[in-house]
């Protein structure tokens, strides 16, 4: 039975209870931060919309209506966000676009975070030439503006949403590696790392079991804060025609398609723009809140 | 002799998730021009008491008192301007670690001169001379080197002396020293204490010496307040500490190992719930 008392006890009786209790305390601390909760609910709504898109969207996102009657209608009760030049309901497309956005965000996080952590902690823990080699590689990636580099990778791999994700992932790990390395440099000098060394632990065991969990929270915070940028990069690639291909309802591609008639039919480009703005804001607020909640020093 | 400082029923409260928690619970004492020791273990509220006297209770803590008077000035209603005229000028504070109390990007000399001139004004050269004299007074052998040094270039003992010089150049009436020697080696510790001792004797300064080290306090101070769980459980003459009445004081005293040989196993402190009431 999971109750509040069970979670907050000072004397957990099992590994599971200790872990859940710790997670619950983090959640309580996050919950007391109002702005972070706004961010949390925005992201939760994004996930909900992505899952239930077929039930929420009133029209098909790809196949439009009658091209003669339904093109470029302004926002109304029939079409909440209007329709575009292919007579497709923009609201439905924005709803389905949540799926693509979430896919980009999730895949980039899953690919880039482990690479960054692995490179950064390894470089920081071993130091010496390992550090020099790994960090110079990281510097090379950091030397190019992210969108330009992603653009190069995306055009080399060919257009398409999958390639765009890979290109973004490849370009977004270096900052995480830097961050993880900086954290590792202080962690490796501490007595708890000395202690585990004196227990005879191997280097991979120390890095994976003892260093990474401590770097993880700051990297997670950084990834969350970067999500806004990742969404914008994906949108940028989509806008330049290297991301999602028509007729996929990707928000960046939708803005690109709408820019031709932004003066006369403003809603075509503006609606997906607002969606990008809100989701970016949500990730930023959540990331800020997580930074406070995950800081082990700040918690009692 | 009139009292320099009077504290009556000082309470410090922190709000927590479980409701307000009192870390200092009704502390009262009076201080003349003497050396008063406050002893207690971590969490006893001794440092909180020291900070509250300077109005430096860290947020979100709230300090209240029935009476808090320094030389006839009611500190409870002190305005920011009054505090500015008191802190660092008539009441100074020395903390445990000089590393955190000195400005790392300013030379020692400039910090001392600045402390002096904000209070007394006057010409730079005069202030400089005063600073050098002060550095000599705290037993720094090479004052001109220390004057031009940055805090990180000094050893712990030197840094603490420089800190003392800065705190004492304004000739305060009251010095609150919170574990001023705990970060120092034993041999250096005694030299710093000797400087404090002389200042009390020569200038008639009042000194509140906050420490966890019962042996040090008992040999250095005139009077000792023993704190436990936010209260003063006993006040004793320092020389009588070995004959203290309260079981907590006795326990603190007997649990220390002695060079001459101590019983084995060492006596441990059996805490009684009634002490905290």
């Amino acid at each position: 039975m999971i109750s509040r008392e069970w979670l907050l006890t000072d004397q957990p009786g099992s590994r599971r209870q200790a872990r859940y209790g710790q997670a619950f305390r983090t959640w309580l601390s996050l919950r007391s931060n109002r702005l972070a909760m706004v961010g949390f609910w925005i992201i939760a709504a994004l996930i909900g919309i992505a899952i239930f898109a077929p039930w929420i969207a009133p029209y098909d996102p790809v196949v439009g209506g009658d091209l003669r009657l339904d093109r470029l209608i302004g926002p109304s009760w029939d079409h909440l966000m209007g329709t575009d030049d292919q007579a497709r309901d923009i609201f439905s497309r924005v709803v389905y676009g949540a799926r693509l956005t979430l896919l980009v965000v999730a895949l980039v996080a899953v690919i880039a975070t482990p690479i960054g952590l692995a490179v950064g902690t390894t470089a920081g823990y071993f130091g010496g030439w390992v550090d020099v080699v790994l960090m110079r590689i990281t510097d090379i990636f950091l030397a190019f503006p992210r969108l330009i580099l992603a653009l190069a990778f995306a055009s080399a791999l060919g257009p398409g949403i999958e390639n765009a994700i890979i290109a973004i992932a490849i370009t977004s790990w270096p900052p995480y590696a830097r961050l993880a390395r900086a954290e590792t440099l202080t962690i490796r000098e501490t007595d708890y790392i000395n202690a585990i060394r004196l227990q005879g632990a191997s280097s991979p065991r120390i890095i994976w079991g003892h260093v990474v969990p401590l770097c993880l929270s700051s990297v997670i915070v950084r990834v969350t804060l970067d999500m806004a940028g990742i969404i914008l990069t994906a949108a940028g690639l989509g806008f330049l025609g290297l991301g999602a291909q028509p007729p996929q309802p990707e928000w960046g591609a939708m803005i690109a398609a709408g820019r031709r008639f932004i003066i006369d039919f403003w809603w075509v480009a503006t609606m997906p723009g607002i969606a990008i703005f809100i989701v970016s804001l949500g990730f930023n607020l959540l990331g800020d809140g997580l930074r406070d909640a995950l800081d082990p020093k700040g918690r009692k | 002799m009139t009292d320099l400082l009077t504290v009556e029923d000082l309470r410090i409260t922190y709000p927590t998730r479980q409701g307000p928690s009192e870390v200092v619970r009704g502390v009262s004492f009076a201080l003349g021009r003497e050396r008063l020791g406050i002893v207690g273990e971590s969490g006893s509220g001794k440092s909180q008491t020291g900070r509250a006297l300077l109005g430096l209770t860290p947020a979100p803590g709230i300090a209240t008192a029935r009476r808090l008077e320094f030389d006839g000035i009611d500190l409870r209603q002190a305005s920011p301007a009054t505090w500015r005229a008191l802190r660092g000028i008539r009441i100074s504070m020395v903390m445990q670690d000089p590393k955190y109390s000195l400005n790392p990007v300013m030379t020692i000399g400039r910090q001392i001169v600045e402390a002096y001139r904000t209070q007394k004004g006057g010409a730079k050269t005069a202030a400089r001379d005063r600073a050098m004299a002060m550095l000599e007074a705290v037993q720094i052998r090479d004052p001109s080197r220390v004057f031009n040094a940055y805090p990180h270039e000094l050893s712990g003992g030197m840094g603490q002396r420089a800190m003392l010089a800065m705190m004492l150049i304004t000739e305060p009436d009251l010095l609150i020293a919170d574990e001023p020697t705990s970060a120092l080696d034993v041999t250096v510790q005694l030299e710093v204490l000797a400087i404090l001792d002389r200042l009390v004797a020569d200038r008639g300064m009042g000194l509140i010496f906050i420490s966890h080290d019962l042996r040090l306090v008992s040999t250095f101070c005139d009077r000792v307040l023993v704190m436990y769980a936010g209260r003063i459980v006993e006040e004793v003459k320092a020389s009588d500490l070995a004959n203290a009445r309260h079981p907590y004081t006795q326990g603190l005293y007997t649990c220390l190992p002695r060079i001459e040989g101590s019983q084995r196993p060492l006596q441990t402190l059996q805490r009684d719930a009634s002490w905290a009431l």
Partner: protein
Amino acid sequence: MNLIEISNLDVTFGSFANTVAAVRDVSFNVAAGEAFGIVGESGSGKSTVLRAICGLAPVTGGTIRIDGQPLKTPRDAGFYRRVQMVFQDPYASLHPRHTVDRVLAEPLAIHGFANAETRIEQALADVGLGHGFRFRYPHQLSGGQRQRVAIARALILEPKILLLDEPTSALDASIQAEVLNLLDRLRSERGLTYILVSHDLAVVAHMCERLLVMQHGRTVEELTRAELQGRRAQQPYTRALLVASQGYVGQTPTLEKA
């Protein structure tokens, strides 16, 4: 028979022009079952000696033998099962994200010990912590409790030698007494050999049969407990330490600084 033999130990940090000799020409022997103390002020190199023994500081000269065998660099798994260390600051020596259970299970897993479950429970009981502490995080423990966990961690591999680096200097006096008693009891129960580093002469006099006084990385003198208690120190530095340990004595004692 000496269990630990250290002869002419040098430890130098840094390289080329920028070297710092932390320990210079230090020699001492420790018999099996003995408690040996190293006393000194900050910068005396006393902790560096311990770190050199367990491989955390580089041995740049001299030899360290245990059971007559010179130590290998890097130390092997067998070394870690015989020699363990307790660090000074219990707030810094426990991983902030690991429960007590994880802290104790880790060494058992590394060395492939069977029945971890019973060993962890036993180790906690040995240091006077009950089952209720097993799944707590370090931030849910007091300083004394943390140090008990650190001692349990060091003892769970059943070593013969325990290196103690100021194990009580971060603790309150009453907690210090409890931890010292615990260390004393564990030594007599298990026949452990201790090397205890401390700045506090009284702690060393209480715990150790013999001690070494160090200053500026060098040996000042070696004393027995009886010599210390009888204040029969030969060197002025040791005598100054003895005077200082009595507390404040009125005027500035004149100290000879080498």
